[in-house]
């Protein structure tokens, strides 16, 4: 893009009405905007071809442009010979329309986001278009643009994925930032390994991020923190900014990937929901539990839901028993 450092004359006049210091700053802003100038842009080479083909198609408003060169006929064509090329042209046109429809169809298919879902009881490994890997915990949905492209063969300016649930990411280094969008936060990296938990419901509404390698930045509208390996932060529901970084045991970051079970600072119903998703069982909570009780728990290798429930019940005056389709958890009788 050609650089245009000079102010348009009318704008210069308008700024002259501001106080001198103000005027200098605003002009400086105008100059600094140069940094945000878009690239010149390289139109897809077929853009002109497509346009000129459309112009070549006769339309009521415009006469056909294409000068069709035909070998001169030895004699003046009569009506019949003049009409002969017509069916052929119709076929060509029909083929062109069909080809265009195919192209449109392919593009329409291409621009639909890819959605990968791990159902309860399952975990899914996803190979992302840039070679990065995501592992989805049970009951998680990940959505991204096919090929991280804006259009076929046109790169989007960032590698973004939308996450509802929990996933561990191993991100390939790359020039374009890798961004995980959750319901209330954005996690941006350039090449690292980290876990994002963004679940809603059962008293849980935070986005939790924990890093096992490299550095990531967690940002909301009002604030940001940078996490390094072994640190975690959360964006609680309704919070403006992420919490300050706190230490997290390395093995707990992605315990779930290795058959472990780890939760940090979650309400009891959310932990039970996690058990439900993980083993695809029903866990009902009977009676009331202290509303603000928060659970942090790490089990390296639970054999099944019961191991987690036993641990939960142990320190908390809770009991549990099996039901027809799972378990129920209830307060211990006083």
């Amino acid at each position, binding site marked *: 893009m050609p650089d245009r450092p000079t102010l348009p004359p009318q704008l210069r006049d308008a700024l002259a009405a501001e106080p001198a210091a103000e005027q200098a700053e605003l002009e400086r802003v*105008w100059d*600094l905007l140069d940094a945000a*100038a878009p690239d010149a842009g390289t139109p897809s080479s077929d*853009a002109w071809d497509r346009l000129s083909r459309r112009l070549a198609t006769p339309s009521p408003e415009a006469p056909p442009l294409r000068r069709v060169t035909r070998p001169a006929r030895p004699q003046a064509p009569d009506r019949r010979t003049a009409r002969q090329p017509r069916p052929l042209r119709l076929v060509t046109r029909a083929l062109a329309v069909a080809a265009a429809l195919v192209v449109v169809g392919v593009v329409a298919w291409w621009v639909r986001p890819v959605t990968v879902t791990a159902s309860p009881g399952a975990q899914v490994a996803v190979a992302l278009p840039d070679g990065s890997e995501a592992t989805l915990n049970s009951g998680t949905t990940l959505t991204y643009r096919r090929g991280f492209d804006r259009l076929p063969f046109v790169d989007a300016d960032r590698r973004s994925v939308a996450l509802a649930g929990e996933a561990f990411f191993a991100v390939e280094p790359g020039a374009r930032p890798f961004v995980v969008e959750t319901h209330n936060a954005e996690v941006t990296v350039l090449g690292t390994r980290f876990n994002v938990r963004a679940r809603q419901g059962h008293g849980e509404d935070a986005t939790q991020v924990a890093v096992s390698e490299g550095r*990531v930045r967690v940002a909301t509208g009002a604030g940001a923190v*940078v996490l390094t390996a072994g640190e975690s932060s959360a964006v609680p529901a309704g919070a403006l900014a992420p919490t300050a970084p706190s230490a997290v045991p390395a093995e707990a970051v992605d315990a779930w990937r290795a058959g472990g079970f780890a939760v940090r600072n979650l309400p009891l119903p959310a932990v039970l929901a996690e058990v439900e998703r993980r083993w695809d069982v029903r866990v009902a909570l009977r009676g009331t539990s202290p509303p603000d009780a928060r659970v942090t728990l790490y089990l390296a290798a639970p054999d099944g839901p019961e191991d987690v429930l036993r641990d939960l019940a142990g320190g908390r005056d809770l009991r549990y028993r099996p039901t027809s389709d799972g378990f129920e958890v209830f307060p211990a009788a006083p």
Partner: protein
Amino acid sequence: MESRPEPPATDSPDFYAGLCRALAASDMGAFETLFRHLHAPLLRYASSLVGPDAADDVVQDAFVRIWNARERLDPDRSLRALLYQTVRNLAFNRTRDRRLHDEKHVEMSVTVASPPAPDAVTDGARLDDHLGRWIEALPPRQREALTLSRFDGLTHDEIADAMGVSPRTVNNHLVAALKTLRSHLSRYDSTLLAG
């Protein structure tokens, strides 16, 4: 690329007036020059109005319209402003049609995170990333005027023509936009403003 825009000198009003006369004579070469010249910025502009998916269609349609109207073009009116205005109108028609369509059809929706807040920053973000986000967060018409003026190099008159407002309003949009960006910049790194 051979389609890279030529030096700014060719952006003069005379350049477009010349193209305009050539177009009236159905000069396909002139039309291609016009296309190569404005396709990229128009695509960006359309993208900001209807999103990247529909932008290509809108720009193609705009050029078709200009071609179909080539014999009725007024050389005294900026051809560039006319193209921007056409893209703008087509974009708004499309948005309106899409809205009507969406009201009638319940479609499957995909959960997508809300757009990043203005100050949501990226790791290792440079000034241009921040500026890009702040510009995105401006009110639409301020953003539109600023982009056309600062990045696409349109004159106030051309912007006013394309947006259907007075040049004075264009000025107001620009001043308001610069003030908002200044406050972001001063919070980000006030030394930048001193430079």
